């Protein structure tokens, strides 16, 4: 019962995650690209990113 409940909770979290985080951004991160969804706070502190994108690689809106 405990194990089943745990799996259900994790599956629900996964579904919420897929709904909240664009699959495109997840795929982009897996290939090494910075994205707004996975923007690191520390980048902003260091001043090396704006809106989750590295300096020099701003989105073009394509």
């Amino acid at each position, binding site marked *: 019962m*405990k194990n089943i409940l745990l799996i259900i909770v994790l599956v629900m*979290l*996964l579904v919420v995650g897929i709904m*909240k*985080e664009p699959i495109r951004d997840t795929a982009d991160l897996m290939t*090494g690209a910075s994205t707004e969804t996975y923007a690191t706070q520390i980048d902003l502190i*260091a001043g090396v990113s704006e809106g989750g994108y*590295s300096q020099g690689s701003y989105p073009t809106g394509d």
Partner: protein
Amino acid sequence: MTIILGLIFILGLLVVLFQKWIRKWNIYFYGIAVAISIISFTQETTIINMGYVGISFFFLVMIASTMEQGTIKKKLMGNRAELAVIGSIFSITHGLKYILFALDYSFFWEAPLYFYLGIISVLVMLPLAITSLMIIRKKMKGKAWKKLHKLSYVFYGLIFLHVILIANDRMLFYIVLAGVYAVYKGLTLITKKVEVKKVKPAV
């Protein structure tokens, strides 16, 4: 969120399917993890450098002992050491990457609290990871090893604090994960106490 949970499911499945082989050839898996970590370290943004892979491994390590007896628990517990060592390798990469980043951009002494919590958690993790290796573990007395590994709870607490205090869009997700672990651990401890009381004869 998606990455961490996806990895938890994939790693869990791999352990359930290949537990015996992972244990048998664990040294090769450690070598592969080190090689992947080195490659990741040379890159800028990877799921290893960002800590997602490390935390996925550690969530499985944490939750394994709290599960109900069964095949999944047996398999996860059978590979707990391997999961912990490989998770540590990836976490060290994540930690080193951010430390060098902080030094590079001169904010090491002005970083937010979660940054220092991350460093402390890696330092706490190191003796746990080293003593998870069978070669080292065999040289230690059982009681001493168990005593040292009580530090795991400190490590888990630090990890969750580290990710929660980043206070990004995934904060609630990390709080839920921490809550799930805390509830399951609590239930496990209560169950153990009840069982001990049943075994002890009434005075």
